[in-house]
């Protein structure tokens, strides 16, 4: 576990793009394991946005165009893009390279992909802010999105599609400080996994043969989840990480305006909230409308739940992403004079 601090970089804005198409859980849950009302009660997910028409980068691209417009940033002023996703456009090349051209950015552009899931926004923020703080770059965009077209699985009810953008700016001011606690436990690498299609198990015809996994029929190019293991990990590691960061800052939950948690499910998130002793009004939720959107869930929650509440006043946050890897990241940051774009619906 590592505690890190970065000074001199601020978050200037947030935006998010989602498909227009809404899929209601009452209409779509078809499981022999549980019924729709039980699913909604326990997970908190009432509907998600999904579509066959967009990749994660398409959703990020639309959100980026909107945010650049709202910030009044010229495209040439963006010197770096960091694309966090586990559903890139291609296995190669990196999607960030394609986005440089599609976004119309200068060729003098630092572009990289980061392959992380639910913890990815915090890791991406750390990576982008580190580059800004240490390398003389002035402005960068952190793009984070998930659209699971490649591992499509009709009965996988938790996940929704979203693409988000976080605009970062070098200020050089000590007061613009972010603190991070980041951790990894690779022993749980198979708690959330797509077994085939990478180099360890290259895709073959057999990769598409259906097999029974925990009572569900699926093939080896689809994501499989050991729900109980992810649940145990989340309710034990996440509160510890958040408490560790609060202790590092010499603060308690009441000292922060918001705790923006990865939108896993209501049971997990409410247990975390109680363990860190945060009040319900400090912990916004977007999962009822958008489901679990992996690395997009923290910025998507800020865009859809905090717009109109935080832009014009100094606001303090702790955000925590946790999941596939297993990987987790907690960050403490502040915003002021923040731009939050209207949700972009495609």
């Amino acid at each position: 576990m590592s505690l890190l601090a970065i000074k001199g970089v601020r978050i200037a804005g947030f935006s998010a793009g989602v498909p227009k198409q809404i899929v209601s859980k009452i209409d779509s849950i078809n499981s022999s394991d549980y019924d729709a009302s039980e699913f909604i009660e326990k997970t908190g997910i009432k509907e998600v946005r999904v579509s066959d028409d967009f990749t994660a980068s398409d959703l990020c691209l639309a959100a980026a165009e909107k945010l650049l417009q709202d910030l009044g940033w010229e495209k040439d002023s963006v010197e770096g893009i960091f694309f966090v996703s586990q559903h890139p456009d291609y296995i190669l090349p990196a999607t960030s390279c394609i986005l440089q051209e599609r976004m119309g950015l200068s060729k003098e552009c630092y572009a990289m992909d980061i392959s992380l899931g639910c913890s990815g926004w915090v890791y991406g923020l750390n990576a982008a802010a580190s580059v800004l703080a240490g390398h003389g770059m002035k402005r960068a965009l952190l793009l984070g999105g998930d659209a699971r077209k490649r591992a499509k699985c009709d009965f996988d009810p938790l996940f929704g599609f979203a693409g988000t953008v976080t605009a970062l700016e070098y200020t050089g001011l000590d007061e613009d400080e972010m603190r991070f606690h980041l951790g990894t436990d690779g022993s749980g690498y198979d708690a959330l996994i797509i077994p085939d299609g990478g180099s360890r198990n290259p895709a073959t015809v057999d990769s598409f043969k259906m097999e029974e996994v925990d009572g569900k029929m699926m093939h080896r190019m689809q994501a499989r989840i050991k729900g109980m293991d992810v649940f145990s990990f989340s309710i034990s590691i996440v509160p510890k990480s958040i408490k560790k960061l609060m202790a590092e800052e010499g603060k308690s939950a009441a000292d922060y305006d918001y705790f923006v948690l990865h939108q896993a499910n209501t049971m997990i998130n409410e247990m975390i909230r109680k363990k860190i002793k945060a009040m319900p009004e400090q912990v916004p939720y977007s999962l009822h409308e958008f489901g679990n959107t992996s690395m997009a869930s923290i910025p998507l929650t800020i865009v859809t739940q905090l717009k109109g509440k935080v832009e014009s006043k100094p606001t303090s946050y702790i955000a925590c992403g946790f999941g596939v890897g297993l990987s987790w990241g907690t960050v403490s940051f502040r915003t002021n004079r923040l731009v939050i774009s209207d949700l972009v619906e495609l």
Partner: protein
Amino acid sequence: MELKDFIENIAAQFNDTDASEIKEDTVFKELDEWSSLIALSVIAMVDEEYDVTLQGDDMRAANTIEELYQIVKGKL
């Protein structure tokens, strides 16, 4: 930690299953109402009531409620 209380706490995770059906030798995974969601509720309840985090392997290893009780007790 008492087995009687543990059984009551487990029974509380079910909506449609009568508490009288839930005993120490009940093979809980064979109850009609058992689901992957109730499994998560059980992990959550054990975490809240006993401050023990059950892992997936613990849940898979236990057949009866008493076996689960012994696993929790072993982690106290």
